[in-house]
């Protein structure tokens, strides 16, 4: 997050500031304030002194931000003759917009004016407290949170923030009265117990900390923010096992961690959604994305795109969010628009390719993946997707190059290694396939995918130079000990048949057929029945994988109609 700071305001020499110059400058402005038209009595009772308010230079800001800010400023001017409540609302609105735009320095006088105009109003005092907190002025923040509490003693977030701020100030001894009030407001609240736990850690009352923070986890088992201080407390008590347990589960620290405990703060939530700019919406979209709220992410990206329709990256993000939200049809035009805006946007080519292949439009998908690897030859994922699509559509020979390239880029992409092997099998190059599998197993001994494939090849290759029934059996025997799958059972049957052990082969194959039937896969059972019949006839298998085996059709499950009909090519 960009942090705009008040404290380093320049005064006089551009490179020279007085320590605490921000405060000093504010004092001067306050003294001079009533000479400016923004304030002063309009007859009747004396109005409070108000601070001059000015918009920051918005030249670099997005037009939507300028519009919002200028409208808010105009509202302040328009409210000049209004009631204090109307004027406070106008100043407050401007202050909040500036705060949302992280113009903290510019926001301060606006919010301060709102407080002066309506000193008994909770809201503006509370916001001003948060502004000081964001500026790092914790003493002022604590002061204003306390004032806010005075105005609305039953406001729970104000109390929680007051406690949190005092703890950050290193004043744990000062928090108990506020904690007591918070307890009275929300008995049994995880948020209160959490603050009690933090206070106990600060005062080195580790047993107390364990009690409070354990209670937090009882009240809210998902309160990951409680685990770290709890771990530190257990550690201090010498219980390293418990400390390690909680460290493994820690998360969500940082200021405002209370939010993860379900602390609802509607006023601050309003600020978070106030500013309209592509970047602001994008930020909210990413927050939604982080918690898996894809529809909200798509909604925010949509608003960002409306404000910045020529931003290809935003359209790409919107497309991804649409897809994750279960609306791939909406993703398609966004990806196409993104690529019209920026044909060099490699990730858009790639994402579009993945969408097209899921929709069964393989030729188009291959086009996208081809562009993606041309633009970013170092993308192992794009190479792999291209290779899979080529192999899936029968261009097996062509698929071998991107498979190998993917392995060169990232030796850990086992899917590319396996894909290359299956491509070689499909091409009848069983000797090469065997060599690749041997190498893969040297690299990752016992890897079930490669071990199974090699056992099948050794057992059932039509090439006698490749076959080795004994080794196939050894591999299959090791596999069945660890992996009880139909695939492994069928492989064992192939190996036994190659060794002439047809009775055993039939037993294993029957087992595979039965399991497939029991699992509700009669299609699979039917395919395997062919081999069962073969073994009954005393014939070994000479087809390690049938042409319609799923191993020969890599890639995602095709969802017909996912994207609608393909355009004419």
């Amino acid at each position, binding site marked *: 997050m960009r942090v705009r*700071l008040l404290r380093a305001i320049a005064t006089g020499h551009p490179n*020279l500031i007085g320590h605490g110059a921000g405060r000093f400058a504010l004092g001067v402005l306050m003294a001079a304030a009533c000479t400016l038209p923004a304030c002063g009595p309009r007859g009747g009772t004396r109005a409070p002194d108000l601070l001059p308010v000015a918009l920051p230079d918005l030249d670099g800001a997005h037009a939507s931000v300028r519009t919002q800010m200028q409208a808010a400023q105009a509202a302040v001017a328009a409210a000049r003759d209004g009631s204090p409540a109307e004027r406070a609302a106008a100043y407050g609105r401007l202050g909040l917009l500036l705060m949302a735009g992280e113009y903290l*320095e*510019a926001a301060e006088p606006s919010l301060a004016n709102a407080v002066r105009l309506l000193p008994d109003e909770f809201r503006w005092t509370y916001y001003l407290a948060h502004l000081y907190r964001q500026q790092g002025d914790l003493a002022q923040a604590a002061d204003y949170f306390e004032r806010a509490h005075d105005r609305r003693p039953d406001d729970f977030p104000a109390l929680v923030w007051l406690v949190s701020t005092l703890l950050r100030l290193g004043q744990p001894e000062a928090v108990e009265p506020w904690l007591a009030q918070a307890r009275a407001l929300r008995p049994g609240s995880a948020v209160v117990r959490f603050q009690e736990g933090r206070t106990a850690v600060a005062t080195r009352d580790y047993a107390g900390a364990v009690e409070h923070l354990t209670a937090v986890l009882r009240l809210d088992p998902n309160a990951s923010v409680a685990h770290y201080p709890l771990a530190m407390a257990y550690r201090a008590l010498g219980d390293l096992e418990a400390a390690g347990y909680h460290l493994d589960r820690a998360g969500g620290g940082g200021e405002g961690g209370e939010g993860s405990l379900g602390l609802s703060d509607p006023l601050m939530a309003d600020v978070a959604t106030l500013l309209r700019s592509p970047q602001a919406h994008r930020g909210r979209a990413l927050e939604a994305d982080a918690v898996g709220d894809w529809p909200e992410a798509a909604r925010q990206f949509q608003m960002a795109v409306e404000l910045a329709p020529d931003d290809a990256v935003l359209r790409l993000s919107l497309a991804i969010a649409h897809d994750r939200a279960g609306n791939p049809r909406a993703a398609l035009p966004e990806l196409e628009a993104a690529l019209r805006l920026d044909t060099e946007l490699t990730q858009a080519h790639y994402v579009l390719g993945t969408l097209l292949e899921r929709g069964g439009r393989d030729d188009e998908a291959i086009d996208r993946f081809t562009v993606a690897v041309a633009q970013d030859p170092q993308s192992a994922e794009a190479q792999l997707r291209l290779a899979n699509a080529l192999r899936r559509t029968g261009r097996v020979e062509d698929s071998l190059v991107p498979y190998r390239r993917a392995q060169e880029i990232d030796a850990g992409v086992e899917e590319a290694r396996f894909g290359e092997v299956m491509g070689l099998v499909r091409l009848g190059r069983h000797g090469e396939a065997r060599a690749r599998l041997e190498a893969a197993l040297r690299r990752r001994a016992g890897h079930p995918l490669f071990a199974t494939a090699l056992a099948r090849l050794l057992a059932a290759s039509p090439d006698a130079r490749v076959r080795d029934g004994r080794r196939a059996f050894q591999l299959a025997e090791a596999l069945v000990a660890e992996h009880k799958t139909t695939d492994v059972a069928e492989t064992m049957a192939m190996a036994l048949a190659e060794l002439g052990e047809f009775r055993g082969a039939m037993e294993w194959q029957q087992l595979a057929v039965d399991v497939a039937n029991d699992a509700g896969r009669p299609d699979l059972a039917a395919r395997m029945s062919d081999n069962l019949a073969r073994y009954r006839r005393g014939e070994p298998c000479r087809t390690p994988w049938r042409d319609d085996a799923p191993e020969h059709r890599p890639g995602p499950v095709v969802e017909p109609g996912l994207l609608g009909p393909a355009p004419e090519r």
Partner: protein
Amino acid sequence: MLSTVRGLRSGLAAAVLPLLAGAVACGSAESVPPVSGADGGGPAGDAAAPSAADSAGRIRFTDRAREAGIDFEHFNGMSGEFYFSEIMGPGAALFDMDGDGDLDAYFIQGQMLGPGRTLDDALTPPAPDAPLPLTDRLYRNDLEVRADGSRTLRFTDVTAGSGLDVRSYGMGVAAGDFDNDGRVDLYRTRIGANQLFRNNGDGTFTDVTERSGAGDGRWGVSASFVDVDGDGWLDLYVGNYVDYDLEDESPCFAVTGERDYCAPKSYPAAPDRLYRNNGDGTFADVTAAAGIGGRYGPALGVLTADFNADGWMDVYVANDGEPNQLWVNRRDGTFEDRALLAGVALDFTGGVEASMGVDAGDFDADGDDDLFMTHVSAETNTLYVNAGDGFFEDRSAMTGLGAPSLPYTGFGTAWVDFDNDGWLDLLAVNGHVQVIEGLAQAGDPFPLHQPNQVFRNRGGGGFDDVTGEAGPVFELSEVGRGAAFGDVDNDGDVDVLVVNNNGPARLLINDSGHRKRWVGLRLVGGRRDALGARVGVSRESGPVLWRRARADGSYASANDPRVVVGLGTADAVTRVRVEWPGGRVEDWTDVPVDGWTTLTEGTGRPAGGGSE
């Protein structure tokens, strides 16, 4: 009484200073009579010119860079493109290049950034009188100490012909005698292959990167020479930041749509490197074998110390926005990251922080080293207090260090007893990493600048922000980055060399510390500074004052490996104990105060072992 003693001793100072670098007699400490007490100072160029206010025990500095001859100005190469790399440098080194007993200065320079860009494209071009082409700069310290103890601090630019007139965009520097020839060598970090410069001993340096094999090509910032395997040769730990390619940089924006610098999260972290010194001028990359390569973050600060007191050096890495690492040496060539359980990976809430600079020191005089690190604004600088059992506790808020740091982004820092009262204070060099709105509104062309801060130790329990009384130099607002700490004028207190991004270097001469008694120590093992050695100074009363000989820490910079120990109200020391890397423990009882003494490993009285 104090002035009388000083008067008696100061006359010998000039004659014996050169002995600092020499050999010492077996069985006793090689002492250099005191040189402090420059009461008569005043004219420009005279270091340690106190004012009446200093006698109150305040921490006070004066910037004497220009008058001492240091005219280095960093150029960051910005052209309005907001390149991430332009805001991260530079560092600097204080090191005794020529073995004459005083600290010379080395500055890392930037260059124009961006494809096809020239200085004509610079937003803030170098000053008209700046030497071109832009190179790193080397300044020799020609400190003159007169018979009356007064002194003139003068630096001479000796860059030309030194071999350090490097013309690539640099980041930071580490200093250490990697070939054990008694001369301090330099390791320069940058985006791209780092460089190792061997000190030839005649004011010149030779780039031995290729032969050494230590030229890591990632974006290095802080590095440290450290003997991790106890073989007597300094190995090298290189902290790498992020995987960054300037030509692939995508623009970043504030929430309002205004252009701004990217955050480090925009880039993947780059793995650190550990190089083992083979003892023949070459290094072997042992990162993987050491178990370090698999866990890393965007490293900005690197610090080495024996955190678990087992005689083996450990490594602490401060990461920018990801958990920090405490690599504990397992004594078999491998390391284990124990930061999380030790309590030094995260802040007190369990949150990650954007760590920059770091140092370790015994601020509470309980015999173990505590960690302090600087952070981005809106995060506190963090003090991890060592409980003595290998576990640390974040006490930033409770010690008064948290809240005052919130508005600032800190970089260079160190534990130093600036006022020699026996308690370690702190200095933080500040400068933000994203546009500060108030400055931008004022039309500032580089709106990241912030003032630096000084925190005075109240006696182990907490700190006071004494920035406001530390001198006019603390009213400056600059984009501070590196800071190298050392006694530049050899007067018994620690000075600070501050380097600013896109700004002038500042030489903060300490005007206050030498007013109290002190002991200056150079710890030598073999032919070089015994980096990692701990020294405990005992007085008639009060806790033992433990300090470390170190050149690393801070940010991207190399510090004076010598140790200045302020004695507070004591007039003498009763014992000096040194815990040498490798575990040997020796005592000295005849170490004089208010002067420099070289303690060489193997020449003290063997002690029972262990810290007090």
